């Protein structure tokens, strides 16, 4: 399981970074989205990987915390997902505005001289 997750994070990061450095705004947005997926998985991994362990402890008496997954990273990931969602949406709007104003989808607002 660790190797699968590590590979997933690595692939997402690599493709995200590659797209981030592309000259088209849409590619940059996609790159940032892929990077944020990678980061979310990474946060989850920071709380140690567990399967079949619930994160929420019920009300019944004393429990052994070792049987439970760490709930903090999951809460962090939730917050991070919401925030990256919102910022990506905002970036898309700016992308459209920039496309409308400059007439090109190059990140600098003008085509390179070639």
């Amino acid at each position, binding site marked *: 399981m660790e190797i699968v997750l590590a590979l997933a994070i690595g692939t997402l990061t690599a493709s995200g970074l590659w797209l*981030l450095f592309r000259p088209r*705004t849409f590619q*940059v947005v996609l790159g*940032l989205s892929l*990077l*944020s997926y990678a*980061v979310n998985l*990474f*946060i989850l*991994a*920071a*709380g*140690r990987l567990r399967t079949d362990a619930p994160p929420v402890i019920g009300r019944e008496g004393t429990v052994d915390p070792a049987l439970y997954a760490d709930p*903090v*990273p999951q809460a*962090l990931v939730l*917050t*991070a997902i919401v*925030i*990256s969602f*919102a*910022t*990506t949406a*905002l*970036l898309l709007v*700016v*992308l*459209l*505005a*920039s496309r*409308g*104003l*400059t007439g090109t989808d190059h*990140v*600098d*607002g003008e085509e390179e001289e070639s």
Partner: protein
Amino acid sequence: MSGWMHHLIVAPIVLPLAISALLLAFDERRRALKRVFSLATVGALIGISIILLWQVSHGVGASPVAAPHVYLLGNWPAPFGIVLVADHLSVLMLLLTSLLGFTALFYAMARWDRSGPRFHVLFLLLLTGINGAFLTGDIFNLFVFFEVLLAASYGLILHGAGTERTSASLHYITINIAASLLFLIGVAMIYAATGTLNMADLAERIPLVPAADLALLESGAAVLGTAFLVKSGIWPLSFWLSRTYAAAAPPVAALFAVMTKVGIYIILRLSWLLFGDTSGEAAGFADNWLIWSGFATMLFGTIGILSARTLTRVAGHYVLVSSGTLLAAIGIGGHALTAALLFYLVSSTLAIAALYLIIEPVERNTDEEDVVAGVAEPVFDDEYTGAPEEEEDEIGIVIPGTIAILGGGFIFCTLLLGGLPPLSGFIAKFAIIDALFRHATITPTSWLLIGLIICSGLATLIGLTRAGIDLLWTPAEDTPPPLSIIEVAPIGLLLATCLALMVGAGPIFLYMEKTAGALGDRSAYVEAVLKAPRAGEIQP
């Protein structure tokens, strides 16, 4: 710890947030109402910060001791629940922010808040985020407040629209989203190494981190630090800064002057709290990086000031010089130096804000095409629904002697930024140099910092004088533009604050010394947070 005074600490976050949500309900036709509301809010924030400042330095209620003021949100004990902490440093930054916010908002009423929709909402939201970042006591909430302030700043950068703003903000947003991702990676790595995100708890656990995990912790902190350094504009991560700030509307740029200082604040706080002298193996691990990248930033900023052709670019590069000075000084560390750098932080932030505000009326006179027009065509049709059809006249009285007032203010700014006596800029730089000389041995790094401080001051002086001669002394053919009292008053207020810094340098330095002392006293901070009594519990 009784009554409403204890709850006052949440006000700097909740008050602007609530008012900004409320203002969202009114459309652009109710502008007068919005102005009254937002100005009153920011005015109240100044009052609240002053009360908090008094609380922190005199103690609350019956216990007259200066201690960090801790507030448990949700009433869970500290490492598990979320805490707000107000200590000397955070209330100082709160006061600085509200003061800048007030002046920028006041200035915006001249015409800038009309150049696009929902200015006041975003402005208050930005203040919410900044105040939250100063007050929060754990790293993840810091991320949340950072995102709040960034999201609001994205909106404000775009305020007024226009091609230049849109394309500058595209870069700004992309860089900041990438930096936020670094922030998250850093947080996750620190959590993996220590199992906590509460700053006080982290300070306790970091000395206990086993040697095998030290690399994980340090790389986590380094990644986290990079995110803040991007914000504070360190070289080579600062190329976005001067262009973005130049493209922003002047009142927005003035408020952004404090946003770079948010990054500086976090670096200062974390490097003292988490990686101070008693942090075992991890102590001071990045100090050399801070010092040398600070130097590189100062050098880059100095060259930038000399080569800039527009005043807004000069101001943007001065922001870099100021950040570089602060970071290098943080890296060198020491009690006296920290007090001096705090004074420099306050003085330079106020002066930069004043410069950003004064640039626009000064440059209004030039023949050049107005690159960043105040009002641009809306990009999306629905943006302006409800906007008034015709623009009302400039409010306020147009005052005579424009050139004299602008020239005077500009010279004042130049002296402040260049660090010439007798103004507060000089006192701040002198204090930094004096603190460096007070070390037992003066290292080559100290000499380098002194040299760079003096050179950058000289470059600022040259850059601003050249621009001033161009803009103010060259006789203009057309009559000088009208200058409204609404624009002059906030600039005057900022410069008067700098004068007050100069006149009251003694007591203010005493406060800065206390702040540096409080930063050095990690155990007091940790104890105050971890032993904070829950509401309803009786204090022992």
